[in-house]
């Protein structure tokens, strides 16, 4: 294990935006008002599946304050995907900004633009729509069967890369990845596990609702300020949807109040763009909380089937995982989330017979998209639970079963070749991978073995323990790209212009630390400006846990280039050659001890001699996606009369390479695991029989508050990733995956009942007790 001494990296440096946020500065999209700004409100479908026979907007147009009413007739019919992904997107082009068909309750029908929000809302009520109601498809299990309603029967939806897509049978994507001979190895196994699990649809619930603002700059260029995770993808896709050149569009991301994947889609931007292009005026649209629940994005619900074949000694011979994924009314992120189900599970195992298949289907339900965990969350449930079931059958500790079967650091992982996110990953070797250490440390610190061996409770309150391994990735190999631009100022400070999007996770800070480390200055000497498509170089955006790892690599590369230039100038000032000087503690030092400060170098380079701007712009892609890993352990207590689960203690052992900023790292894994616990225990979408969401509010859709006691302990297990900036991997997503399988396993440990679908609400648990009886 490498021991590195850093000066800026690995310090809990204060966030660069902390003081702005702590003092309530107006830095979020909704905080910006432009004189003459109009407000937009979207009319949304009350039906899950219908054709629009007619829309009459005359009354609405005439209402006081209304400046425009836009429907499908007023915009060119251009198919796009709203998925914030690199081009060419591996998601179908199946979305029309306004269409003459609606595909879920909450789908966009028309847009009113007025001088106040109230005026716009009143005018919504005056739009007369005649619908021809169609049979809705609300059950993903029926989606691919003969006779199912066809969600996308239009002729012009298509995929733009050669991937399976059969909208006539509601098939959005298909994944088929295998190594070895799974069927043979499974049949030949002494112990066989065969189970079906289910993950439910849920909401990101970022506290800031989606908000976008568009205006024409003085030269008539469309400028969009938006609460987005993907400004560059917004620019490209809005340009496409509006049929204007990319060069006529600028996108700026200000501060975001959370995203978690819900803002990794192009949600409101085309609507403000259309409104501004039509009226010539600034237009802002902000979603209500109800709209965020219904009409932004959700997690993909999935039905998963897992088969594991093993020998009596615990060696796993075969793993066969299938996922039926419900992508809702539109196919954005359908294929890629499904691929990750296999990628974040099978990759863990040193098994030579593995298969992952998936069918992704349309339904007339809200639009599923990217959500922290991105398929890893859905995949780990059947996987970790099947391992647990296998362990029980073998009379073994599941931690030991895992230790016996997971890959070692540096291992070759052939299934990676088959599982790329729509492209082949060519480097099937994992670098750092300390899952074994997480399992051992976590097990020990939690007192796992002792608790596992404990005699079962038999009264009303029964305790149980469960665990789960998990992995994620760090960016998408070959596909993601990040870049950075650094220039030097006269006082020895630097501007760092980043495409990378800080959505609250603190990437501006982490990337500044990396630059500071390389340039041997304090983080405070790095001035960060990010996420403006005119002024910052390209970055795919905040997703796939790419920011620390990939954007970090780009920053380090750029800083190293700048360092070269500094040494060149410093050497010139010291009248020696560049190979005889070094950069240390903000000074260029010659071999004879003479030195110049960075301030002197900056001033000299800009004003004194052979002047030029010390600057560089570098990019990074990656051939790998080094996985952060974790092991979670939970102890619960079940009230067998009400079904309520109480979390008695929870431990997460996490490794993510060098934590560039330990405080922010801790914040990420805490936020992720609490979100995962909330998803496992209390979050639920309740639909009626016609596909309408009945609980689009915080009163009936619950997330945890400060009074919910979740005693969580976090341990960072040391690791070091050679390909990462200063040894770092990313860490934003991985820990959201643990709670659901860990709790399912703990319920089994407590009651002898396996629960195959969450949320594990009290009624659901009590129901399982009633139906299956406790052991």
């Amino acid at each position, binding site marked *: 294990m490498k021991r590195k001494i850093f000066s800026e990296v690995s310090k809990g440096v204060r966030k660069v935006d902390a003081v702005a946020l702590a003092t*309530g500065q107006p830095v979020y999209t909704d905080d910006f008002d432009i004189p003459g700004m109009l407000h937009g409100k979207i009319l949304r479908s009350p039906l899950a599946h219908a054709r629009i026979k007619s829309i009459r907007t005359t009354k609405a147009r005439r209402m006081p304050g209304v400046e425009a009413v836009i429907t499908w007739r007023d915009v060119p019919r251009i198919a796009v995907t709203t998925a914030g992904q690199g081009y060419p997107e591996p998601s179908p082009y199946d979305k029309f900004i306004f269409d003459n068909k609606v595909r879920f309750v909450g789908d966009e029908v028309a847009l009113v633009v007025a001088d106040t929000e109230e005026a716009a809302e009143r005018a919504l009520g005056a739009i007369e729509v005649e619908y021809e109601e169609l049979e809705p498809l609300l059950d993903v299990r029926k989606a691919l069967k003969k006779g199912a309603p066809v969600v996308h029967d239009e002729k012009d939806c298509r995929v733009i890369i050669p991937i399976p897509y059969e909208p006539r049978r509601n098939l959005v994507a298909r994944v088929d990845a295998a190594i070895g001979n799974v069927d043979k190895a499974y049949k030949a196994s002494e112990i066989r596990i065969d189970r079906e699990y289910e993950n439910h649809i849920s909401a990101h619930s*970022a506290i800031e609702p989606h908000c976008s603002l568009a205006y024409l700059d003085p030269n008539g260029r469309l400028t969009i300020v938006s609460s987005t995770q993907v400004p560059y993808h917004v620019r490209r896709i809005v340009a496409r949807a509006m049929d204007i050149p990319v060069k006529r569009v600028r996108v700026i991301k200000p501060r975001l109040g959370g995203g978690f994947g819900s803002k990794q889609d192009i949600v409101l931007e085309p609507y403000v763009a259309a409104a501004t292009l039509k009226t010539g005026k600034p237009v802002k649209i902000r979603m209500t*909380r109800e709209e965020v629940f219904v009409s932004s994005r959700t997690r993909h619900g999935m039905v998963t089937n897992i088969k594991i074949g093993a020998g009596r000694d615990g060696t796993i011979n075969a793993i066969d995982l299938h996922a039926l994924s419900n992508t809702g009314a539109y196919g954005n992120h359908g294929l890629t989330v499904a691929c990750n189900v296999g990628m974040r599970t099978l990759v863990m195992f040193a098994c030579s017979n593995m298969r992952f298949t998936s069918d992704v289907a349309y339904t007339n339900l809200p639009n599923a998209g990217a959500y922290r965990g991105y398929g890893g969350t859905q995949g780990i449930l059947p996987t970790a639970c099947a391992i647990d079931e296998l362990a029980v059958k073998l009379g073994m500790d599941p931690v030991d079963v895992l230790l016996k079967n997971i890959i070692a650091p540096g291992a070759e992982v052939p299934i990676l070749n088959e599982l790329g996110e729509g492209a082949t990953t060519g480097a099937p070797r994992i670098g750092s991978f300390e899952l074994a250490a997480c399992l051992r440390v976590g097990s020990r610190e939690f007192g796992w073995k002792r608790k596992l061996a404990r005699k079962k409770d038999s009264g009303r309150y029964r305790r149980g323990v469960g665990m789960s391994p998990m992995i994620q990735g760090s960016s998408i190999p070959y596909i993601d790209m990040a870049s950075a631009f650094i220039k030097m100022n006269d006082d020895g400070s630097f501007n760092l212009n980043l495409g990378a999007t800080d959505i*609250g996770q603190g990437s501006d800070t982490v990337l500044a630390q990396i630059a500071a480390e390389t340039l041997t200055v304090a983080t405070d000497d790095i001035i960060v400006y990010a996420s403006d498509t005119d002024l910052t170089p390209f970055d795919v955006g905040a997703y796939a846990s790419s920011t620390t790892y990939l954007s970090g690599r780009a920053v380090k590369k750029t800083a190293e280039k700048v360092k070269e230039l500094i040494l060149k100038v410093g050497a010139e000032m010291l009248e020696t050659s560049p190979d005889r000087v070094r950069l240390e503690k903000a000074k260029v030092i010659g071999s004879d001890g003479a030195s110049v400060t960075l301030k002197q170098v900056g001033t000299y380079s800009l004003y004194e001699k052979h002047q030029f701007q010390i600057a560089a712009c570098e990019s990074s892609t990656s051939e790998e996606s080094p996985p952060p890993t974790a092991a979670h352990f939970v102890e619960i207590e079940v009230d067998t009369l009400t079904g309520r689960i109480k979390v008695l203690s929870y431990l997460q052992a996490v490794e993510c390479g060098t934590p560039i900023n330990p405080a*922010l790292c801790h914040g990420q894994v805490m936020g992720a695991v609490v979100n995962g616990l909330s998803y496992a225990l209390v979050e639920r979408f309740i639909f009626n029989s016609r596909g309408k969401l009945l609980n689009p*509010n*915080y009163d009936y859709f619950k997330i945890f508050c400060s*009074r919910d006691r979740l005693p969580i302990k976090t341990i960072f297990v040391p690791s070091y990733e050679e390909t990462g900036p200063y040894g770092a991997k990313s860490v934003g997503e991985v820990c959201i995956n643990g709670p659901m399988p860990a709790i399912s396993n703990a319920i089994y440990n407590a009651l002898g009942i396996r629960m195959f679908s969450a949320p594990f609400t009290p009624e659901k648990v009590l129901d399982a007790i009633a139906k299956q009886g406790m052991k």
Partner: protein
Amino acid sequence: MIPISISINGLKKSLEVRPAESLLDLLRRSGYKSPKFGCGEGACGACTVLLDGRPVNSCLVLAATADGREVVTLESLGDQQRPHPIQQAFMDAGAIQCGFCTPGMILAAKALLDRKANPTEDEIRRALDGNLCRCTGYEQIFSGVKMAAQRLRASGKSAKKK
């Protein structure tokens, strides 16, 4: 429009409000952007302000009924040059990720520390129970409040003084 007299952050103002306008909307259009719109139904706390010293959901208060009352927003607490000790503690404790819940959290914490100089963890949890956070899992926010309480006690100042 209904005329009201209201004190905002110590400044007396005469304002014209729309009859059905919320205090949140009034504050935001009057230039006070720190209280946020998060849900509009009193569940998330992003709109928290102090109304006659009490932390409330400003999205639930009709602006017209705030006539004659005192409103305090985060803007009054400190600024970038001299942040209030509670703001400083939040920064130092890593209690701020996306920052959207932060104004509400800080005001709820201030209302607590105004009354209890040495709150227990239970009291902290209760004081913040109307402020939802999706980023932090709350733990570092509790640390921030404890740190603020400790520092205020050590400096002999109450949270009331700037």
